[in-house]
């Protein structure tokens, strides 16, 4: 199971991201992508396909189909459950309508997997102003999730999500563009994973600890603000940077820093290298080891809610394919993107290693993320 609503918001947003280039509809294009994530005993792979087409001068429609094929033997699974395989599919439909300097975007997403179904609807408006130097946008999404549980046909829970966002993109000089984004995400309902457990000290069992199901609050509200900058260098290359601060009602505070450098080479190639650092504090009800059963009203041992940092290095190559005299597509590219990410936890212990309860080695792992895709513009 998963918090699919955020991914759904992503799918809508990817269809039409306002940029400081005036009010124009996105280009007609088609993308076919294969993705693979391999890290921490989990592999996730599958395709993603996007088609976007204008209808007249004022309307653009898009459709995306995305698949995750999950094979999981993560540390959570290995310590409290059995390895599993699962498939998630997601379909997205979007429509953008341009009226003068204003663009209206509507989206609907359906994500489905054996134990989780998520529906999301979204609406966004972006307005270009001040001679197209400034683009202001705001949007709203609402999601409805149905949560089930393998092996328990009586288990049926639900969650709703509301997302409010505001964006400002500003051209500051002939080389520098900056953006400010602010977002509130509010969740209500069953927000934990029905398969996850917390561990607590239990002197009655040989290994010294036992498990019980996690219990999360039924509401969560997070605030995030991010500042983004892109700078065109005196030669044909670009720098970009991003900082995000996040804080929520569960006590998680997080900082994200990203920097990147883009360098074209000859006419056919674009290379990009990037670095990303992320750090967060734990949720107030998180603990790797509770002192006893039912020690608190709310209890979590999800490493997503732990104190940790991650560092990622990304390498990206884009190759413009020769047109070979064909009328379509107007341009097409082959792309290979690779990311390597290291996760290091400060209060989540590796229970696969020996040790008395609470003294096991801290957990860390590396992940490799591959993307191979074709993009065509027509």
């Amino acid at each position, binding site marked *: *199971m*998963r*918090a*699919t*609503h*955020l*991914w759904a*918001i*992503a*799918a809508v*947003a*990817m269809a039409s*991201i306002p940029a400081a*280039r005036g009010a124009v509809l996105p280009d007609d294009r088609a993308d076919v*992508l294969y*993705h693979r*994530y391999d890290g921490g005993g989990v592999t*996730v792979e599958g395709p*993603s*396909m*996007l088609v976007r087409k204008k209808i007249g001068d004022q309307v653009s429609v898009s459709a*995306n189909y995305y698949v*995750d094929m*999950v094979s999981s033997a*993560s540390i959570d699974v290995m310590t409290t*459950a059995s390895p*599993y395989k699962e498939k998630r599919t997601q379909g997205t439909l979007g429509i953008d309508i341009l009226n003068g300097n204003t663009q209206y975007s509507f989206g609907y997403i359906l994500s489905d997997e054996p134990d989780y179904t998520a529906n999301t609807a979204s609406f966004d408006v972006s307005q270009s*102003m001040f001679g*197209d*130097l400034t683009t*202001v946008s705001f949007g709203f999404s609402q999601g409805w999730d149905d949560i089930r549980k393998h092996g328990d046909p009586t288990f049926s829970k639900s969650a709703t999500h509301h*997302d409010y*966002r505001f964006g*400002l993109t500003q*051209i500051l*000089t*002939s080389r520098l563009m900056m*953006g400010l*984004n602010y*977002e*509130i995400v509010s969740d209500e309902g069953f927000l934990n*994973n029905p398969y*996850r457990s917390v561990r607590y000290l239990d002197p009655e069992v040989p290994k010294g600890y036992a498990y019980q199901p996690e219990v999360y609050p039924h509401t969560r509200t997070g*605030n*995030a*603000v991010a500042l*983004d900058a*892109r700078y*065109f260098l005196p030669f044909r290359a670009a720098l970009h940077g991003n900082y995000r601060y*996040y*804080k*929520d009602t569960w006590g998680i505070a*997080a900082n*994200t820093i990203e920097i990147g450098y883009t360098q074209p080479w000859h006419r056919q190639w674009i290379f990009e290298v990037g670095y990303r650092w992320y750090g*967060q504090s734990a*949720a107030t009800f998180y603990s790797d080891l509770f002192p006893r059963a039912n020690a608190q009203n709310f209890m979590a041992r999800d490493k*997503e809610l732990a104190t940790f940092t*991650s560092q990622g290095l990304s390498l990206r190559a884009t190759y413009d394919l020769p047109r070979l005299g064909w009328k379509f597509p107007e341009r097409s590219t082959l792309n290979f993107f690779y990311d390597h990410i290291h996760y290091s936890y400060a209060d989540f212990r590796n229970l696969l290693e020996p040790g008395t309860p609470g003294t096991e080695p801290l957990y860390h792992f590396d992940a490799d993320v591959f*993307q191979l*895709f074709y993009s065509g513009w027509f």
Partner: protein
Amino acid sequence: MRGVDRIAIAAALVAMAGCSHVEPWVKPYQRQNFADIIMAPDRDPVSGAYIEHVHDVREGARGATGSHGGGCGCN
């Protein structure tokens, strides 16, 4: 209202107020750099959404990425 809310809204208002009644100081013919594909924040939208999804699944923070989100393979 939380501190981060106030900061974000104040920054947005200052930025917007600063632009009102101002002639565009970067003329259209001076914006060719922004038409270059290497300056596009949404150059690869399918890839961008995917990589944000990879992060969101494993991190507590979410939102304000200008796009994107996450959630799968998280157990």
